[in-house]
């Protein structure tokens, strides 16, 4: 049976890149698929050229080519990432970590209740969270880009971990809340409790997204991509 050469495999990788598949993990799966199909076509008709066989198989993916596959893969991994964030977040509401969560919430609550310029304080705190978030985000994705330049391989889940764009959008929410909150009188118990809990939750999310998950990135990447360990060993 005729098999594909290494050069032809490289050509298939190039082909997926030409059709907007940026990520190596997805390229690899599609390359194997295309290769299998081409070899199967050769078995039936040994005369068909490599490029013709490739075009025949590619047509089966429809008018949008690999686009749909890429999009759905992004959604699936995005979901996996959200689940990961949620898993870590829940840890802060179970023993033993809940002690830290409760302590900081109560402390904030007391400060909010007893500080006269509470509006400025709350706005400043949220601004701080936001600014540190954006700065770290910038540095992490830059570091990720540099890594990509040296390895030449982009991993979708890695891009999500170090780019976490889906969560960046959520960071504006507190400001909508702040704009619509009336601070004219002293802050009530309910408001104080709400803002202390909101702030602690946001700070926790930031800590999880920027520190905890990136520190375990290798582990999560190996879990998602068995080939990740294989590739990086070479």
């Amino acid at each position, binding site marked *: 049976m005729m*098999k*594909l050469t290494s050069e032809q495999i490289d050509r298939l990788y190039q082909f997926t890149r030409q059709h907007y598949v940026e990520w190596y993990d997805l390229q690899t799966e599609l390359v194997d698929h295309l290769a*299998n199909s081409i070899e199967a076509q050769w078995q039936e008709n040994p005369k068909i050229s490599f490029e013709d066989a490739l075009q025949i198989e590619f047509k089966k*993916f429809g008018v949008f080519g690999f686009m749909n596959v890429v999009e759905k*893969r992004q959604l699936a991994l995005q979901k*996996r990432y959200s689940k990961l964030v949620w898993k870590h977040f829940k840890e802060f509401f179970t023993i033993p970590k809940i002690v830290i969560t409760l302590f900081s919430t109560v402390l904030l609550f007391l400060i909010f209740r007893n500080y006269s310029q509470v509006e400025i304080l709350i706005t400043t705190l949220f601004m701080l969270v936001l600014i540190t978030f954006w700065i770290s985000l910038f540095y992490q994705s830059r570091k990720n880009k540099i890594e990509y330049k040296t390895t030449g391989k982009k991993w979708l889940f890695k891009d999500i971990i170090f780019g976490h764009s889906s969560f960046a959008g959520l960071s504006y929410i507190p400001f909508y809340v702040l704009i619509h909150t009336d601070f004219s009188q002293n802050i009530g118990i309910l408001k104080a409790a709400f803002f202390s809990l909101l702030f602690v939750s946001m700070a926790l999310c930031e800590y999880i997204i920027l520190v905890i998950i990136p520190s375990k990135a290798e582990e999560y990447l190996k879990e998602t991509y068995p080939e990740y360990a294989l590739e990086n060993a070479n």
Partner: protein
Amino acid sequence: MKNSQLYKGSLNTIIMKLLEEQGRMYGYEITQKVKEITKGELNITEGALYPALHKLEADGLLDVEVEKVDNRLRKYYKLTEKGTTENVNRLAELEEFIKNIQTIVNPKLSY
């Protein structure tokens, strides 16, 4: 079968059933197996297969293994424990559905 709308909702169940029987499979193998079993009547499109596999994987129903075969990497899918349990439920659901469709399409059979 030309009308792919008819099997779209069952694609996940078909994939899981195959994986239960075969242990582990790769994408291309799944398309070929379905074609073989149904004698070419049912044709899973590539554009639908991979999204379905990736979704099942994200839901924790499938696990992946990667191996070097010939001069390329091959990604195999297999059922997780959760996937095996889920497979039983979905098969039962699908069978129930087929039965109901039969009574609608061919009501006399039910009497």
